[in-house]
């Protein structure tokens, strides 16, 4: 475990009926985007869910997930809810599913702020407007009174990011944040995440199956397969000289990839 890591996962095992994640260690650093890549079923989403204690009932978790001094594996309800949203926040894959269709953006953007930070309604609202401005949602004041269905997919994900950042967390877990979006707006969302990581010194865990997304913003990439991390390298190194055959396979599947043309892979 490194000293300045804000979130340290070590020797994490998760089993639901059968072992699904077997011995993962990963550190997240402020201002850096760490990618967790792998196909569906590799355990990458389970890992991110485990951080917030959101695994389904019946999941067995061992190992350690430390956020600062707080141990999250086996933590009680009170500890978890003090960390969730406040120190570790999450952005989900599909904003049209992760935003409540019947609650206004304003409510979804302020209820946890008021709980965690004890702000007044007015102060929370003010904060919400600033956040919406930052994530470039047009007419932030008016947006608070609107409902998710009145926004486009890309704007919805921006709102979801604003919600995640509302309490100024140290860690942001982004689970396939662009997969459900139109290709045209994906780049914008990734760029936003990248900027936010830098300016807020956020530690971002970017979970995706899409190495194209990784290549855009990840500083370091860990490749997961069948519950274990098979390769971990800085972005440049991973993309230019992949070590593990599975990584090469993933890279080859990437459209327009350089490796595609190499006959040997």
């Amino acid at each position, binding site marked *: 475990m490194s000293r300045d890591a804000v979130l340290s996962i070590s020797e994490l095992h998760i089993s639901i009926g059968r072992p699904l994640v077997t011995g993962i260690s990963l550190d997240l650093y402020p201002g850096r985007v760490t990618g967790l890549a792998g196909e569906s079923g590799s355990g990458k989403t389970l890992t991110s869910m485990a951080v*917030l204690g*959101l695994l389904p009932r019946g999941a067995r978790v061992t190992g350690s997930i430390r956020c600062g001094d707080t141990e999250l594996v086996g933590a009680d*309800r009170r500890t*978890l*809810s*003090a*960390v*969730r*949203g*406040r120190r570790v*926040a*999450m952005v*989900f*894959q*599909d904003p049209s*599913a*992760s*935003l*409540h*269709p*019947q*609650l*206004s953006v304003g*409510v979804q953007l302020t*209820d*946890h702020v008021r*709980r*965690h930070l004890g702000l007044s309604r007015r102060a929370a609202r003010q904060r919400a407007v600033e956040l919406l401005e930052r994530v470039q949602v047009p007419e932030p004041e008016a947006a608070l009174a609107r*409902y998710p*269905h*009145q926004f486009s997919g890309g704007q919805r994900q921006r709102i*979801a990011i604003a*919600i995640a950042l509302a*309490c100024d967390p140290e860690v942001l877990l982004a689970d396939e944040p662009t997969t459900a979006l139109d290709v045209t707006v994906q780049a914008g969302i990734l760029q936003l995440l990248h900027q936010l990581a830098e300016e807020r010194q956020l530690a971002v865990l970017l979970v995706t199956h899409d190495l194209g997304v990784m290549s855009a913003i990840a500083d370091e990439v860990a490749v997961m397969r069948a519950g274990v991390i098979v390769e971990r390298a800085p972005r440049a190194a991973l993309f230019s000289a992949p070590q593990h055959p599975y990584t090469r396979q993933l890279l080859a599947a990437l459209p327009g990839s350089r490796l595609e043309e190499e006959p040997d892979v």
Partner: protein
Amino acid sequence: MQKTAATRSPASPLAGFLLRRLGTSVLLLIGVTLVTFLLTNLVPGDPVTAALGEGPASDPATREAFIQAHGLDKPAPVQYVMYLGALLTGDLGRSLTTGQPVVADLAKAIPATIELAVAAIVLSLAVSLVLGTLAAYRRGMVTDQVLRVLTLIGLSVPTFWLALVAFYVFFLQLGVVPGSGRISPSITPPPTVTGLYTVDYLLNGDSVGFLDALAHLTLPVLVLSLFTIGLLTRFVRTSVLEVLDTDYVRAARAKGLGGWRVVSAYVLRGASLPILTVVGVAFGALLSGTVLVESVFSWPGLGSYSYNAARNLDLPGIMGVGLVVGVIYLVINLVVDLFYAILDPRVRLS
């Protein structure tokens, strides 16, 4: 989508919706009168004997007078058209059972049943929301299984039997609650405002009357609610389970909201629309229950009235009940739609 709706009807979409609703409503009500009319006319029963009893009905003079007075000598289609004509002027004829205008009878019976049914549905919904949510959260655990068996039992108890048992135990034996009528005989009914005694006593500031009316409501409402609670609890459980598996609930938890906030603001709001639909259906089932419950607790409502009308083959009475039931059905649907619009911004804002 909004564009096509706008081009199709130049008036506001709400007006169009209400007009269409009104059209189907009128059709439904005419259908209801026709069905009840056919039922009571094309069948072998003899309304004169049913209304007068065997003795008087065998006297030709009495018989003739009764037939004349109620227009029973005319051919059936003429009777029906006459009925519809009178209906337009708000006249539903005279009951063969009570001898009173059906409108006057219904004006007394409807509020009595509405008071009963609304109290029962409110109670059932409140209990079911708690039990159903609990069962969903404890899915597969002992609590869930116990609730599953209990709700199935609730759906299996014969209402009329339960009414009798409750009547016997709590009224006759223990004497803790009154067991018949809407108020004690010693108490004068409140001045009619809404027709709901509890509300009218309150409006009149009469606490003694209010408590008495409330006490009289207790047994029928509890008996009536059991079935509805069983029905709704199971449905709330299913709906909540579906919502618990959504990303927006996961997201709410990931925000660190408290369990209570997640349930009340996110889970139940998400489950509210399907639950609402079933509450509408349950209300209809509840009206069925009133027939049996009212007859046990001598509750002077629509159930008792329709029972007496049916037993006496009282055509105007039955048609009146049919119409009221049709109207209630329409009102329930309208109320459900209204709540839909309140609860779902996607409906409200489109």
